[in-house]
């Protein structure tokens, strides 16, 4: 506990030293409130229940001193290849170390009423200012506060009512920092009534330095809008990635998200869903492949505050070789939220006894007329199934791969964009068959 304040106090000092610089009035106030809340919350302590299996304080303490908000981004010779998705015809946004790269991005051809903005350049944009931090602060943790306190870089996607964005929006986030660094990208998505958009995020690292990404995405989905979101996280072993997502839905909207984590380092995905109106549909899913010491933690909270909504949650993953997986999914059905259909499932395959999966599904129901189910299973690869395939002449490694791909298939089937699905399939196949 002696250096309990090391990282917090550095962050607080850093915040003080740049307070007032390049901030307009409204944003300055919300940043000031966020840093206060961050200070009050503090980096979660080791005994924190919510971080029980991901001792973030210890993880951060072990990292070298981080360069907060690294300057001097150099994009010369940057290879975007790994985070490009073959065959995906998309509007493209590139963020390097969290910062929007206009020259590497291409958002031409957006329909009227849809805008993709560099957050740094749009801190006085009416819509941005109105919606940033507009998903509320309930159940927000220290890391979301931290991102909000420093918010500056990232991307804003603003789609007006009735506008259908015809092509998916690909956001390539690459961390290139050569020194230990903290990067804090922000994604703001504001989707007007009856609008439609598809977002694909690919997060990768290009360097070998130890980096902490503290990302925060906020989505506002208005009545009748249909939004589909995929986030693929594939980073190196020295990367720690905290990924906060908050999704606010108006009644009659449909929001889907699928987070695919294949990182070699530490990842914490924490998602908060507030379907705040009747007849919302919320589809949340994720797949994790943790190999060789990786640590992947998925935390979700679906807060059913309004009646007549549907949510469907499916998280699946595969673990091997000294890896750790964590799933904590909570579905909260508040007293007035009658006629809710909420389903949750978590399934993991642990391939050897050096790896661990901690799964904790939680249902908290205060309404009486609801249909909810949840379940979690963790097991090894089915030996009888493996034998069946081998008994048909299929070699053991091929049989194993076939079964693991079959295991992952229903959650990956939720990826609607065919080239993205193919990209993820290929990635997982190559990782699983590398031995």
């Amino acid at each position: 506990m002696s250096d309990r304040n090391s990282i917090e106090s550095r962050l607080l000092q850093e915040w003080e030293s740049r307070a007032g610089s390049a901030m307009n009035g409204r944003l300055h106030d919300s940043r000031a409130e966020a840093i206060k809340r961050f200070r009050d919350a503090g980096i979660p302590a080791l005994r924190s229940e919510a971080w029980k299996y991901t001792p973030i304080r210890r993880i951060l303490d072990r990292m070298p001193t981080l360069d907060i908000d690294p300057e001097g981004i150099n994009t010369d010779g940057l290879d975007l290849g790994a985070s490009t998705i073959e065959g995906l015809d998309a509007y493209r946004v590139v963020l390097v170390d969290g910062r929007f790269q206009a020259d590497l991005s291409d958002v031409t051809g957006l329909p009227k009423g849809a805008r993709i903005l560099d957050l740094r350049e749009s801190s006085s944009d009416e819509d941005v200012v109105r919606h940033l931090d507009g998903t509320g602060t309930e159940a927000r943790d220290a890391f979301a506060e931290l991102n909000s306190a420093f918010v500056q870089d990232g991307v804003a996607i603003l789609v007006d009512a009735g506008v259908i964005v015809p092509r998916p929006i690909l956001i390539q986030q690459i961390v290139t920092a050569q020194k230990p660094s903290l990067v804090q990208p922000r994604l703001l998505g504001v989707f007007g009534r009856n609008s439609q958009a598809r977002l694909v995020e690919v997060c990768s690292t290009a360097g070998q330095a130890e980096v902490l990404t503290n990302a925060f995405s906020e989505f506002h989905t208005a009545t009748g809008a249909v939004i589909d979101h995929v986030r693929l996280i594939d980073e190196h072993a020295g990367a720690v990635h905290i990924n906060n997502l908050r999704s606010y839905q108006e009644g009659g909207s449909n929001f889907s998200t699928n987070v695919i984590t294949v990182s070699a380092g530490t990842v914490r995905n924490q998602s908060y869903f507030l379907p705040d109106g009747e007849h919302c549909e919320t589809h949340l899913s994720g797949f994790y492949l943790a190999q060789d010491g990786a640590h992947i933690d998925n935390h979700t909270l679906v807060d059913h505050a309004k009646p007549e909504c549907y949510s469907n949650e499916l998280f699946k993953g595969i673990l091997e070789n000294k890896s750790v997986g964590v799933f904590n999914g909570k579905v909260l059905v508040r007293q007035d939220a009658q006629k809710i259909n909420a389903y949750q499932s978590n399934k993991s395959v642990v391939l050897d006894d050096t790896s661990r999966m901690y799964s904790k599904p939680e249902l908290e129901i205060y309404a009486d007329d609801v249909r909810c189910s949840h379940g979690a299973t963790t097991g090894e690869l089915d030996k009888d199934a493996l034998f069946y395939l081998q008994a048909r002449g299929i070699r053991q490694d091929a049989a194993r791969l076939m079964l693991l791909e079959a295991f992952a298939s229903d959650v990956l089937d939720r990826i609607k964009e065919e080239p993205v699905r193919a990209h993820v399939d290929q990635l997982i196949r190559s990782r699983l068959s590398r031995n």
Partner: protein
Amino acid sequence: MLEITNLHASIEDEEKEILKGINLRVGAGEVHAIMGPNGSGKSTLASILAGRDGYEITQGSINFEGDDLLEMDPDERAREGLFLAFQYPVELPGVNMSTFLRHAVNSVREHRGQDELSAVDFLKLMKEKAGLVHLDPSLKSRAVNEGFSGGEKKRSEIFQLAMLEPKLAVLDETDSGLDIDALRIVSDGVNQLRSPERSFVVITHYQRLLDYITPDFVHVLVDGRIVKSGGKDLALKLEELGYDWIKEDAVVA
């Protein structure tokens, strides 16, 4: 083709011996039926032939086409031409039937030095072989065995047998769970697959199946031993008298 000599086997990590000295010789093109009471070791023998792990072979040997079968991995045995139609085929959710079979067929073909089948040829082959056991064509686009009825699972096993064209097929109670019509259809399918080069070991409880698939030899397995062998008439006698007279015989002998 197959020669089992003095085979003793027990369940790994358990004292209990299940097979207590099996001797069996199956020549090319022959059909052997194995009958015997529940728990006598018939499925254990089939599993050991196919290479399932979890058994300890304490004595004896199995020779298949001149090679030591016990030295081979299960997939190798299958590629060498051994096929087991399972008593309880497992369901494989998410594994598409045609993808699975294409992989299996091509593994076997590669081993035999044949070219991979093209997509078109593969579909043709599937269609032809599915017809053999009147397999509902929609099953081919489903996940392997998932949600198949008991009878459909058994037909699907024989369909796979037809696709893989093994030298030796072991059928473990393929008749149980089949209705009368299905029994005839499946038996017809098996009969069409009979050839001078292909042998069958048919495990069954019922003489009825042997009315359709006429065996060259019938063996009775009791408590881990083949206690009696004979021609197809032996099955008729068993149907009539049960196993007790043999058990008594065995004790006396």
